[in-house]
């Protein structure tokens, strides 16, 4: 039981050994000592809660939040000691907030449960006691042999044992894992591939030794992968099940990014906490100062109880503390309890607008924008640096073979044929030279392209698709490549190869380790021995083909590769070593020219971002010249720009510190001076990866200074990790700019995760980037609307939301503080408990929520056409300390006017009724409260610039609701309630003429100065936003 509990809570330590041993079909060795290992079952649990632990676990998670924790403390204090307000007044809002959050989280978890049940309940076939048994996915255990039919998904991570093909191969896609839809061939071990029937599998005795579960998708052993589609019927043994499968291990909540607004919010909260503590301490001290005089401490009408009189020093101290706590409780509403829940609702609901936006919808690919986290919405309006990938992000990533160079001769496509430059078509004899053939051979062989056949019947019955291949015309074939340029090259070989090679090339694509590949010339077959896959660090791939020459060197290669590939630890490093050993002494055959078109409207987007004050950095792995020309063509660099170059700073100069410094500075110093002299000319900087790392290591500050003065920076020859490093560096530089990284490939993931906002492009390189991003869009051009419009909206909305929340709570609680000066700091509340409770959850909650969902300062179209408006809100300007101070002071001023206005008008002893009757303290409190609710609501109305019917509804509705509620609340003698303080108080107040005049004049006095300020600023120092509002207003 204890163990179970520990497991549920995740306390159990990870498995001890580095490897796990799986006995196929769970046939454990009969003799020898076998220590059974414990494996997880195949239940996928993405849900966080169960019915039983939902309440405690959810509560625990919620109270880990500092704000909720604070309120529960206040609540407990109210329960324990004698405080001015009943525990209900803080318990109810807390309950409300907790309930709303719990319902939301419960709903989400319910959705997850549904999805889990669907997966766990899926029928699967497992070999048990010699025959196939149908069971549910969740019942699979490690070691089970699972049969997966064609086009089914894998229920767990499997090691391929056999398939219905004689060779024991199987083609799979990994769309669910990383979005790659290309077919990957996996091979079974020769010994097991013969076991094609249940009984033979049953008799199989085998052990699989593998690593412990590990989230890295690409470090898989053999053939394990989950939730991938099989193309043929296969049998596999489950090695990782349930929560230990690759899919589940990769299915983690992403790192918690916090937005700048949230950080400001937390700062403000701390300031308010200080105000609260100050007020409480001041009140406590003043209370005791008053009580020092006996006449105030204990007048005859307020005698203390016996218990209070018997005071020893210890009780005195206790009394002092309890007084302090009571004041804390009295003023605790200054910390807005519903702020967090409102902010969450706003972010959650508001983020739907991104997905709903038609302008962010890409028709060709039928993809709409995707929001992976709603926490960062407002950060989109704060971006200062955009780091973008080039290929697939700025470009379409649709490669087309244009030209090539073979043996120094440039070849171009001419009428569907590859012809050398300068040679007329009619002079061609149609045959290829040896060099050309060798070149084409290399291009045709060295790739990882797979084919699929469109006609489904050709694959029916689990037949071997390759037997059909020869009879096929190329039109029915689709190439699938992990990289689009591979595909372009293969297609080119197909086009330009010697006549009659069409079908053989197609056969190459589906090559098989046992196939003798007839390539190009049927009499010249090749056997593929090894593929040395492409990786971003090596920037190359190679293949090893069977040939007669050098068998002895091949043996060495074979040995090294085999050792590296089967290594259980440090496999990557060992593979690198082996690759380096093989790939040496290479000869240049030729070069290919593949064109990748720029995406639509890239130039406009980059220009718009630049106008918005956002610096755009292009980070690419390309070489310098290519990168610069792409930069120029996409408008990242202008012809008029003064381009600084920092290239070829060799790292081998490192040893000599001084010369290096100067050689780095040399190109920089004059340009630095120029930058400072001349603000008109824009500067662009080109830097390559090696120089960059050098510059960052040794001249970080200088380099950053230069970068900040350049409007465009281009980094070429960048390794993926370097990209993330650059982002990190800027993120942590003293100004702490907000960074955004955008990319489409797996090599951009680290950058996307590192930046404040990570954006994935739904491109052709799988969904790695999209899965790891915060937002995903289909095209680069959507970035401008995402930032300039949505970012702007979200930022102004949430900024006002936060400021307003603090404002309205200052307004709320300050009169109560002021009242203490009139009631000898006896902690008497000014408002009735119900009003204290409902202020934040009913009377003032909806207008701000609706405002924060729909507010638009300027029409979206204007925002997009005038990117400069983005500068109005840059650097968190709406949440600057000055604005915060303004709102806080406004709150205090309003509170003073509410309180002293009412005080002066009701007076100490003025009758407000035509019948001479007098009002009491509750009427006074209600007057202040009424004025407050109306003023606070109207203050928001003053801020609102976009009045939809919903704004009207909630604004006027809130005020109306307050009146209706008060009439109802005061109209009944409430049963089971101790005091009937509010009975008919509200009606009596409204029946007084002077109360109405009082309410009106106080509201006017409160709102007038702020309105005046707005008018004056708009007239004398209009912001860009206001100018545009004006322009639209004049047009209308």
């Amino acid at each position, binding site marked *: 039981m204890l163990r179970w509990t520990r497991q549920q809570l995740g306390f159990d330590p990870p498995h001890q050994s580095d490897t796990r041993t799986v006995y196929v079909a769970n046939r454990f060795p009969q003799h020898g000592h076998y220590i059974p290992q414990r494996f997880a079952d195949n239940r996928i649990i993405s849900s966080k809660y169960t019915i039983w632990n939902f309440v405690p676990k959810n509560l625990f998670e919620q109270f880990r939040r500092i704000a909720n924790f604070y309120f529960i403390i206040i609540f407990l204090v109210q329960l324990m000691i004698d405080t001015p307000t009943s525990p209900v007044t803080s318990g109810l809002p807390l309950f409300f907030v907790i309930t709303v959050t719990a319902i939301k989280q419960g709903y989400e978890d319910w959705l997850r449960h549904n999805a889990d049940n669907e997966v766990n309940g899926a029928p699967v076939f497992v070999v048990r006691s010699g025959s196939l048994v149908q069971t549910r996915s969740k019942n699979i255990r490690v070691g089970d042999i699972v049969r997966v039919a064609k086009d089914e998904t894998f229920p767990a991570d499997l090691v391929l044992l056999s398939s219905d093909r004689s060779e024991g191969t199987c083609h799979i896609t990994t769309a669910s894992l990383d979005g790659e839809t290309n077919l990957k061939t996996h091979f079974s071990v020769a010994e097991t591939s013969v076991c094609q029937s249940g009984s033979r599998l049953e008799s199989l005795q085998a052990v699989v030794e593998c690593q412990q579960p590990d989230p890295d998708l690409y470090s898989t052993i053999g053939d394990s992968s989950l939730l991938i589609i099989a193309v043929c019927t296969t049998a596999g043994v489950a090695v990782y099940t349930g929560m230990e499968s690759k899919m589940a291990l990769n299915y983690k909540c992403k790192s918690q990014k916090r937005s700048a607004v949230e950080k400001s919010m937390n700062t403000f909260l701390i300031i308010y906490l200080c105000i609260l503590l100050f007020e409480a301490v001041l009140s406590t001290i003043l209370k005791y100062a008053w009580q020092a005089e006996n*006449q105030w401490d204990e007048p005859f009408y307020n005698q203390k109880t016996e218990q209070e009189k018997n005071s020893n020093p210890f009780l005195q101290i206790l009394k002092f503390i309890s007084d302090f706590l009571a004041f804390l409780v009295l003023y605790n509403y200054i910390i807005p309890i519903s702020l967090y829940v409102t902010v969450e609702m706003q972010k*959650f609901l508001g983020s739907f607008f991104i997905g709903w936006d038609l302008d962010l919808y890409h028709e060709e690919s039928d993809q709409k924008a995707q929001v992976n986290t709603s926490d960062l919405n407002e950060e989109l309006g704060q971006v200062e640096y955009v780091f973008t990938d080039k290929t697939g992000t700025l470009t379409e990533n649709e490669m087309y073979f244009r030209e090539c160079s073979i043996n120094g001769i440039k070849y171009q496509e001419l009428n569907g044929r590859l012809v050398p430059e300068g040679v007329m078509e009619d002079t061609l004899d149609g045959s290829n030279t040896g060099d050309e053939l060798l070149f084409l051979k290399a291009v045709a062989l060295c790739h990882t392209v797979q084919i699929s056949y469109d006609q489904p019947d050709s694959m029916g019955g689990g037949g071997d698709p390759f037997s059909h291949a020869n009879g096929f015309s190329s039109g029915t074939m689709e190439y699938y490549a992990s990289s689009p340029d591979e595909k372009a090259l293969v297609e080119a070989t197909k086009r330009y190869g010697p006549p009659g090679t069409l079908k053989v090339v197609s056969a190459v694509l589906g090559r098989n380790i046992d196939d003798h590949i007839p390539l190009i010339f049927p009499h010249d077959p090749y056997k593929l021995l090894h593929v040395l896959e492409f990786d971003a660090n090596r920037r190359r791939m190679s293949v090893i083909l069977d040939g007669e020459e050098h068998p002895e060197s091949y043996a060495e290669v074979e040995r090294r590769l085999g050792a590296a590939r089967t290594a259980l630890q440090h496999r990557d490093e060992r593979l690198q070593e082996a690759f380096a050993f093989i790939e040496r002494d290479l000869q240049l055959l030729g070069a290919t020219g593949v064109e990748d078109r720029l995406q639509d409207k890239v130039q406009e987007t980059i220009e718009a971002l630049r106008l918005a004050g956002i610096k755009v950095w292009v980070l690419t792995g390309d070489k310098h010249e290519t990168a610069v020309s792409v930069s120029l063509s996409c408008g990242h660099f202008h012809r008029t720009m003064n381009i600084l170059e920092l290239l070829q700073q060799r790292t081998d100069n490192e040893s000599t510190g001084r010369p290096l410094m100067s050689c780095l500075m040399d190109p920089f110093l004059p340009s630095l001076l120029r930058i400072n002299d001349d603000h008109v000319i824009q500067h662009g900087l080109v830097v390559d990866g090696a120089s960059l790392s050098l510059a960052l290591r040794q001249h970080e500050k200088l380099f950053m200074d230069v970068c900040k003065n350049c409007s465009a920076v281009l980094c070429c020859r960048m390794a993926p990790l370097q990209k993330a490093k650059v982002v990190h560096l800027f993120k942590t530089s003293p100004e702490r700019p907000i960074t955004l990284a955008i990319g489409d490939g797996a090599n951009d993931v680290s950058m996307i995760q590192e930046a404040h906002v990570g954006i994935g492009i739904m491109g052709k390189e799988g969904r790695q980037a999209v899965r790891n991003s915060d937002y995903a869009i289909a095209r680069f051009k959507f970035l401008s609307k995402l930032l300039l419009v949505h970012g702007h*909206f979200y930022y102004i909305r949430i900024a006002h939301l936060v400021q307003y929340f603090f404002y309205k709570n200052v307004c709320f609680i300050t009169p109560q503080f002021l*009242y203490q000066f009139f009631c000898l700091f006896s902690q008497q509340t000014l408002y009735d408990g119900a009003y204290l409770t409902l202020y934040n959850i009913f009377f003032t909650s909806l207008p701000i929520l609706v405002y924060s969902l729909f507010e638009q300062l300027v029409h979206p179209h204007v925002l997009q056409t005038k990117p400069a408006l983005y500068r109005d809100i840059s650097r968190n300007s709406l949440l600057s300390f000055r604005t915060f101070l303004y709102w806080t002071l406004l709150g205090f001023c309003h509170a003073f006017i509410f309180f002293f206005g009412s005080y002066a008008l009701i007076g100490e002893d*003025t009758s407000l009724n035509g019948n001479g009757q007098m009002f009491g303290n509750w009427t006074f409190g209600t007057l202040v409260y009424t004025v407050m609710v109306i003023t606070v609501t109207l203050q928001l109305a003053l801020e609102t610039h976009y009045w939809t019917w919903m704004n009207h509804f909630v604004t006027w509705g809130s005020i109306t609701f307050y009146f209706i509620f008060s009439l109802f609340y005061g109209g009944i003698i409430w049963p089971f309630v101790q005091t009937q303080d509010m009975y008919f108080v509200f009606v009596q107040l409204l029946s007084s003429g002077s109360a109405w005049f009082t309410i009106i004049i106080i509201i006017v006095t409160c709102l007038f100065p702020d309105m005046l300020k707005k008018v004056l600023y708009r*007239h004398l120092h209009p912001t860009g936003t206001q100018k545009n509002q004006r322009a639209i207003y004049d047009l209308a």
Partner: protein
Amino acid sequence: MQGLLGKPLGRVHWSNKAAKTGPLAHRPDNSAFMQQRLPAWSPMLTTSTVLPFMYCMAVLCLVVGVSLLITVQGTQEMKLDYTEAGTCNNCFQSLKNVSNAGKSCSCRVVFTLEHEFKGDVFFYYGLQNFHQNLRKYMDSRDDAQMVGRKQNLKNPSSYCEPYIRDEKDVPIAPCGAVANSMFNDSFALQYQGQPGDPINTVPLYRKGIAWYTDENVKFRNPPKNKSQTLAQVFEGTTSPPYWQKPVYLLDPLDATNNGFINEDLIVWMREAAFPNFKKLYGVLVRTQEPFTNGLPAGNYSIDIVYNFPVQYFKGRKQVVLSTVTWFGGQNRFLPIAYLVTSGLVFIIAIFLTVIWWKFGKDAKNMNE
């Protein structure tokens, strides 16, 4: 902050749109709501829109202010501090001695009205420095007892601490510190036009001084049979320790004005917001001469039964005579507030007009 969704939002399907198929299956709806194109009114606070409004407001405030001022000028008020005035000084001194606390002391103060008080005249008593707004004090009452619930009569709530039961454990009715400290001076007003004229007792109507709803709903005597007297109903309870009379004998003249529905008690139980307050004591009865038009000018005297001690809290006691208008008693602050606002708005409006004139009517600087 933990995200609302630990998982991508895209996974939550809000409608059955996922069921749509076709090339544009995921295309968002082109609705005004989803595209954030809801029709909306976008007001703008500019000088030209605000100026007319400001002038209007200045005029409106002026009108309201002036009319309020005229109304207020018509009201009259007279305050008389009788704590140590006239013969009351003796009583004040005598009450300083705690042993005299229970003894009744009578005294008289005289005053002169220079001008006639026209219309309804209201007689208030006022207390200064008396904090009816202390939390412990305010809480010390039991509304359930005073609303006449039978079971609460003899089981006062613990809120009434320290006046729940007396030393003999008899429940107190009405319980609590508020009721206990009830103001117990009484007044009789006499009018003598000129010295030598006959002395007229000024008739005061002592009902209608509490809120109607308090008198008829919030405060009720415990239910009783026809045969029972009020005293029998309250049997088994004792009066608060500082009271000289039990609750069922508060008004010796009017039997229906006794018990929890005694209007003086109800008025007292409505705690004042501030330490200086006044409470309504009675209204002038204008049925007989010479009071049909209100209080004529002349000499007056008040006979006071001086019971309420104020020296313990450095308090003062007052008598206030006041006329009221439709919007209440004499309160100059309200008209002044309107007049000042009107003036300020007007000045600012002029200032703004100048700016508007000088910096261009359409704010030329806006077209950079």
